[in-house]
């Protein structure tokens, strides 16, 4: 029999620290597969976040520059400006990009920097123990909103793709999920598209990925996948939010 699939070469053969059923490790694998398939392993530079994915530099076998909390897009801007021929992407969670890093993300998108952002949205602060994030759904219970998030006092969840779509210089914004085989394939396609937008030097691209966090959602792994389809995708509709032909 012929081997048709094995672990991608860009993903180091080390155990990942993520909880069982975490979407981060699926997204790491998709990025590693794409870097292998597109031949970008030598030229890629990733800026990992502060958050659950802070140790991404142990797993992805490419060049990495760690940024302070929320500043990944600012660091990526600097790297891309001095090394315009490298593939530069940041990998950020919702606490990193949509809370402490809102200013950096918004202005990087507004300047139309030629970078790609992989934005992992799991509606909660994962690493610090499940506090409310800007993307937490209305009524969702977290450790800091034990009675559920109240939109009147805490505001409704921020839809990052829709927010950035109003900026003139954003080129490609898509929201996908990693909760089913079909959605994983769509996510891979979206990241491939975002990387190719950058290769064409067209401008800013962002892929928002709805990712299960069974530990902080207090669900089992399979129920968290169903929950994304039934609840989360209603608040954060999947699909291409903005695409400028390039």
């Amino acid at each position, binding site marked *: *029999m012929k*081997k048709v*699939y094995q672990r*991608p070469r860009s993903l180091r053969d080390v155990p990942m620290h993520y*909880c*069982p059923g975490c979407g981060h490790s699926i997204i790491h694998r998709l990025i*590693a597969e794409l870097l292998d398939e597109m031949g970008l392993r030598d030229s890629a530079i990733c800026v990992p976040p502060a958050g659950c994915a802070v140790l991404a530099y142990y797993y992805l076998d490419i060049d990495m520059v760690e940024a302070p909390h929320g500043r990944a897009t600012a660091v990526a801007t600097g790297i891309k400006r001095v090394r315009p021929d490298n593939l530069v992407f940041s990998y950020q969670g919702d606490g990193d990009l949509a809370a402490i890093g809102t200013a950096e993300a918004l202005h990087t998108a507004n300047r139309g920097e030629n970078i790609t952002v992989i934005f992992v949205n799991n509606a909660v602060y994962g690493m610090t123990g499940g506090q409310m994030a800007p993307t937490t759904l209305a009524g969702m219970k977290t450790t800091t909103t034990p009675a559920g998030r109240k939109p009147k006092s805490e505001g409704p969840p921020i839809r990052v793709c829709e927010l950035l779509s109003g900026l003139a210089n954003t080129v490609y914004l898509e929201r996908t999920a990693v909760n089913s085989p079909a959605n994983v394939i769509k996510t891979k396609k979206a990241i491939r598209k975002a990387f190719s937008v950058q290769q064409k030097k067209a401008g800013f691209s962002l892929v928002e990925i709805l990712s299960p966090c069974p530990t902080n959602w207090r669900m089992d792994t399979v129920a968290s996948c169903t929950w994304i389809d039934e609840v989360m995708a209603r608040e954060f509709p999947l699909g291409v939010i903005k695409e400028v032909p390039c």
Partner: protein
Amino acid sequence: MQGKILIHHDKCKGCRFCMTFCPKGCIRVSAKLNAKGYAYAECDPDKPCTGCGTCALMCPEAIIEVYRD
């Protein structure tokens, strides 16, 4: 079409994505625990694996190798 998969049991965290999404129901939970203490995923030899690769597509740990004729 015939296929087979190889799961690196020692690295499995027992998230059950592979067995949930396997279209043929070829993967089951082991009776034993691995060194990490998880009930790992194992291939059911009585079920027909087609080597479609859905399990490998969903496996967060990337520990499944897929073989096909």
